């Protein structure tokens, strides 16, 4: 088989961040295959793809496309050679229809004008040709993530590309959306497309790819055919050591009830009831996993628990005390800590120092005050303690948080939230976007806290995370707590059933 793309010793150095993103990368991709590229965060996968798509230029090395050496100055050049890329964060114009988005930049019509009818027909034919059904008139802003991705893929196919790059395509999909998506990839490959996709979900890679290339610290570790490899081997290649996939933990020893939520409802600013009469309890020393497809009330529940959003009905009791009407700081003082989903925009302020970041939430605490003022010495030693205790690499008390890596940022957030010795810890998507090493660290931390007697709620859309951490699981669907699972009930099948609105009784039948 011919090669679609060949990388010849590509190197790329970023002077601004002193990172050698790619070092002498050479491998090739065969025509018509599905080729996966795996590696931890910062392994250089995205940089390599950006070079192939013309977003970055390599310092040295060449790229051959269909046997011809090519030099790309902009994505435009890459598209002209038949290379298309679907980014992890979709680049769509929300207010435009599907048709307008797909044809953005390659509109059909005479003399600079557009012809709506022609465009619509074109999109319909395209979607039929590749069997990717979509409504051409729908406004893109109202589409679910899975269909958005389809729009992005169609956008590239409309440009008649033959090599499709997908940057972590499944990271944004819900578990139900993943299977049909992988099927789509196979169909595309059958139709002659060459597919290159970045992922660090190894099971997926083995399921769908023909070959896989593993990268580490900017270099290629090796390329394997998926038929002759295993998850364990790939993981070892990625990390450079053996990785423990199951989290080591003793059975939980739950103690007194810490959190009691009764008939809690939340109405959002648009007047929609996004959380409906949710009731559950969490005990000290257990991890309560909250599963569900993203957007089914998790946000509202977490916000209501933390005091960021008002409860319209029901009550919240923390260690028997009614905190339904308390504000964020009052709840914090009573022992509630919260690690938010979006650590970059919500959990941290990237414009300021570590010292000021770890003060947030404690600024009115007596411990940090000296009469009217903040006690600078105590603030500094507080920051120093967190940096040392959690081994935050590259951080200094007065250094900017924005310069740290994702894993180290999460350590700062965790450190800040845990120093108050909370009774209840709520963590939302704790490992999103982190590499394998950091995930291990965060999971260990959570188990350690549980064993120390903290009540923990883990909200995650990653089923694996819920399965490996939780002692009990609650599943949210459309704002309703669809069901709770304990002990042996906790498995993928039961959770999946509850996630889509089913009940456990059906499984028993």
């Amino acid at each position, binding site marked *: 088989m011919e090669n679609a793309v060949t990388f010849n010793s590509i190197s790329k150095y970023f002077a601004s961040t002193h990172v050698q993103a790619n070092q002498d990368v050479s491998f090739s991709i065969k025509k018509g295959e599905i080729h996966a590229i795996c590696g931890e965060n910062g392994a250089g996968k995205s940089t390599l793809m950006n070079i192939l798509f013309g977003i970055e230029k390599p310092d040295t090395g060449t790229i051959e496309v269909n046997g011809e050496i090519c030099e790309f100055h902009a994505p435009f050049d890459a598209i002209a050679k038949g290379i298309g890329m679907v*980014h992890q964060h979709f680049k769509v114009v929300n207010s*435009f229809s599907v048709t307008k988005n797909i044809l953005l930049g390659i509109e059909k019509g005479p003399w600079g004008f557009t012809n709506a009818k022609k465009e619509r027909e074109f999109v319909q034919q395209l979607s039929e040709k590749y069997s990717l059904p979509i409504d051409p008139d729908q406004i893109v*802003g109202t589409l679910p993530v899975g269909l958005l991705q389809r729009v992005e893929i169609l956008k590239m196919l409309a440009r008649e590309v033959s090599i499709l790059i997908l940057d972590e395509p499944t990271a944004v999909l819900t578990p139900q959306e993943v299977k049909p998506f992988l099927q789509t990839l196979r169909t595309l490959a059958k139709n002659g497309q060459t597919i290159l996709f970045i992922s660090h979900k190894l099971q997926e890679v083995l399921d769908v790819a023909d070959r896989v290339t593993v990268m580490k610290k900017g270099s290629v570790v090796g390329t394997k055919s998926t038929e002759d490899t295993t998850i364990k081997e790939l993981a070892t290649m990625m990390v450079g050591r053996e990785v423990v996939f199951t989290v080591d933990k003793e059975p939980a020893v739950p103690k007194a009830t810490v959190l009691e939520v009764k008939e809690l409802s939340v109405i959002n600013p648009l007047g929609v009831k996004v959380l409906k009469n949710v009731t559950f309890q969490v005990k000290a020393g257990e991890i309560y996993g909250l599963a569900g497809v993203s957007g089914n009330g998790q946000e509202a529940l977490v916000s209501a628990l933390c005091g960021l959003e008002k409860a319209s009905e029901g009550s919240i009791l923390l260690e028997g005390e009614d905190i339904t009407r308390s504000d964020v700081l009052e709840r914090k003082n009573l022992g509630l800590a919260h690690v938010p989903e979006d650590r970059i925009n919500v959990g941290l302020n990237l414009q300021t120092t570590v010292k000021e970041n770890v003060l947030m939430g404690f600024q009115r605490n007596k411990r940090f005050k000296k009469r009217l003022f903040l006690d600078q010495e105590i603030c500094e030693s507080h920051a120093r303690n967190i940096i040392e205790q959690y081994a935050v690499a590259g951080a200094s008390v007065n250094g900017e948080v924005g310069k740290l890596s994702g894993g180290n940022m999460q350590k700062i957030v965790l450190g800040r939230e845990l120093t108050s010795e909370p009774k209840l810890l709520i963590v939302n998507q704790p490992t999103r976007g982190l590499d394998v090493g950091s995930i291990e660290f965060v999971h260990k931390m959570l188990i350690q806290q549980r064993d120390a007697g903290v009540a923990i709620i883990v909200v995650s859309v990653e089923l694996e995370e819920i399965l490996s951490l939780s002692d009990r699981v609650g599943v949210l669907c459309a704002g309703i707590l669809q069901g709770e699972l304990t002990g042996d009930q906790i498995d993928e099948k039961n959770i999946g059933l509850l996630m889509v609105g089913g009940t456990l009784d059906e499984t028993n039948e």
Partner: protein
Amino acid sequence: MFEFLSLFNVNVINSSIRLATPIVLAALGAAMCNKAGVLNLAIDGKMLIGAFTGIVATYFFRNFTQVGIAHPILATYLGVLTAMVVGGLFGLFFAWMHIKYKVDLVILAIAINMLALEVTVYLMRVLFKQAGTWSDPSIVQLPSITVGWIAAIPFFGSFLTGYNMIVYVSWILAVVLSIMMYKTRFGRHIQAVGENIEAAKAAGISVQRVQYFALVFSGVLAGMAGSFLSVGHLTLFTRNMSNGRGWIGNAAALFGFNSAPGSFFAALFFGFADGIALRLQNVTDLPPYIVQLMPNILTIVILAFVSYRAKLRELKRTQQ
């Protein structure tokens, strides 16, 4: 009961349309910039510069060139053209600074607005030895053009004609821009750039070209609006002649949700508020200051309403 109707007569409508014209031009430019995602808050300053260069250039062409001496009206048209070119050059400068050097447009706008206010007075004093107002008897006002067959239309005819060139141009522009935004490739590209730069880039659209166009275009319009004030509406220049019209244009663009027809009618609305305020001043005992307050207060009230709607819309979008 219908006494207030006496406020409206042909004169009021005509003068309102004239008062609205610079606001229309400012609003069309501002809307274009907002659509392209480059906030242009220097329209007022560029308008003031346009007013000054418009009248100075007219004076120059009228008295120091053969063409101008022979055809005084042509000198005025050349003056307007000069104002447009200068306005466009300032727009180009803005675009260059912002796109090439990532200069903050808001701070740049503040500097240009302040510079326009001070430089025009300074030059008026240095060149013409006048402190507050400057005019020259040789300058001919931009002529009004009455189209016979339009004037003959019963009732509406008298509102639709009898204005100078710039008024008609502002109307034509409103129509052309509406078509451009919704029916052409370039219009679609502008909207894409304004809503999501990354999406536009990924689709191979030249973001720079769109932003350069928007800023230069709005500069040209601001220059034209300024010359309308100094040689179209009157034939003089006074300190701070734009008097916040550019800002009202910005508000009108927001009021019209940055669409060309929307901003056009919003600007007309502000023009009518001005015209009626003037009329009120003539027929009632209200102190002039109170009447002049009305467009300002109206702007804030309308902005509040519009912004709240936009905020709800945004909320709806993010909650989905």
